[in-house]
């Protein structure tokens, strides 16, 4: 290698971007050529020093909020046109004929079928886009969204009561399963109420507990199999998610309280429910 070639490759060498063989050839040349070696040392000292001293402009506080709020505007102002929207229009237009054709058909069953199709469409569209590594991650995203929305939209509870004997019958009547409901006020987790939510493509029970001004959403739905899976935790965006299951139900607790509080909550809940 001559000096000209060495000079040309110097920046790549300095940045560690050359292949091993070229690296060796350059090192060989630098050992043999004092002039290039000096030039290299000065250049690298200077470049590193300049790199370190160049100011880095961190985003000012407030920019994040500005972006988040502009994203929210974007979502609410311009809802995505999709199959759902178009099909609604069709339904309205075609109403009288549909009525005639479908008279005598239990409409709710049609709505149910349509819902299932639409949920499937949404799920099929969403899942590949999100590219979540696993079903848990996808579910975690849904759980956090539900939790955040319950606090944001002033829709924390459908039935606000600290009395488990009020909340439980209300939920039982709305769902096709009977979730366990216990008040844990004496353990430091007073029950605030219950709510219906929609997760994992099914209606679920959401119990709301308070912990020192923070809220815990406990989502409950029937377990798919008899096997009780090991409990797991996910931490994301400052939220803690704690999952466990027993022979009957899946449980997901979501909150911004710390993980040990959430684990205490889980233990208390488990000891007070009849499954244990």
């Amino acid at each position, binding site marked *: 290698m001559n000096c000209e070639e060495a000079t*040309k490759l*110097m*920046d*790549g060498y300095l*940045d560690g*971007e050359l292949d091993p063989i070229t690296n060796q050839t350059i090192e060989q040349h630098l050992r043999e050529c004092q002039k290039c070696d000096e030039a290299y040392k*000065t250049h690298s000292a*200077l470049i590193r*020093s*300049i*790199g*370190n*001293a*160049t*100011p*880095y*402009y*961190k*985003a*000012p506080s407030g*920019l*994040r909020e*500005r*972006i*988040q709020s*502009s*994203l*929210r505007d*974007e*979502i609410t102002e311009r809802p*995505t046109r999709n199959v*759902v*929207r178009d099909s*609604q229009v069709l*339904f*309205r237009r075609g*109403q009288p004929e549909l009525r005639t054709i479908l008279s005598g058909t239990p409409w*709710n*069953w049609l*709505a*149910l079928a*349509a*819902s*299932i199709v639409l*949920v499937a469409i*949404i799920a099929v*569209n*969403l899942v590949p*886009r*999100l590219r979540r590594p696993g079903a848990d991650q996808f579910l975690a*995203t849904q759980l*956090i969204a539900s939790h*955040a929305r319950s606090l944001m939209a002033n829709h924390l509870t459908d039935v606000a009561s600290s009395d488990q004997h009020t909340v439980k019958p209300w939920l039982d009547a709305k*769902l096709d399963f009977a979730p366990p409901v216990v008040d844990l006020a004496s353990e430091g987790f007073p029950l605030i109420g219950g709510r*219906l939510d*929609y997760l994992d*493509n*099914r*209606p679920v029970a959401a119990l709301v507990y308070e912990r020192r001004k923070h809220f815990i959403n406990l989502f409950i739905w029937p377990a798919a199999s008899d096997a009780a899976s090991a409990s797991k935790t996910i931490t994301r*965006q400052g939220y803690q998610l704690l999952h466990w299951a027993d022979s009957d139900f899946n449980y997901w607790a979501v909150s911004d309280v710390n993980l040990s509080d959430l684990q205490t909550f889980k233990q208390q809940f488990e000891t007070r429910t009849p499954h244990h």
Partner: protein
Amino acid sequence: MALLLNEEHAHETEDSDPKIVKFTVVKKREEDHARQVKSTSFEEAMLPHLDAAHNLARWLLRNEQDAQDMVQEAYLRAFKSFAGFHGGNGRAWLLTIVRNTSYTLLKKNRAVDFTTSFDEEIHLAGHESVSPATILEHSEDADLIKEAMDELPAEFREILALRHQEGLSYKEIAEIAQIPPGTVMSRLARARAKLKEYLAARIGREK
């Protein structure tokens, strides 16, 4: 399952056709939910790169207010095309959008300076009398370096920020600046040489 949701809303709806309204309510809820999931997932993937986005925009536009507007605009664009993001390097993906958005503004304002456009004879007068050792002495002066760097053409400011501040690989830089990977090294070398010249000229003038 969804049947139960319908019944939940049944009491709220006394419009002309409760069934349609019920149907709409359920759909609305699912749509909102889908959008919320998309938005949450976008913020989760892209907001961690806010500093990188701001830094690049700030170096390209050389103005704080423009940089902030640009970053906001870039995030909106990124959100709209988020479906085209297939995982992988989120920072490089976002920075490409920031870069393209910034260049659009630079071109519009005719402030585009992709090649060295000003009178180098004046700017660079006397730089040859300044030795590398002297430049090295001044190389920790952040203000001096900032001024010299701001004088560089956009493509040089960009590549220096990406390499020295974000620590990106040549491959990532090639992706963001949309140049062949083989061009990255030579452009970086030219940018560094130019920066050294400008520093020398500034130091020479101050003496």
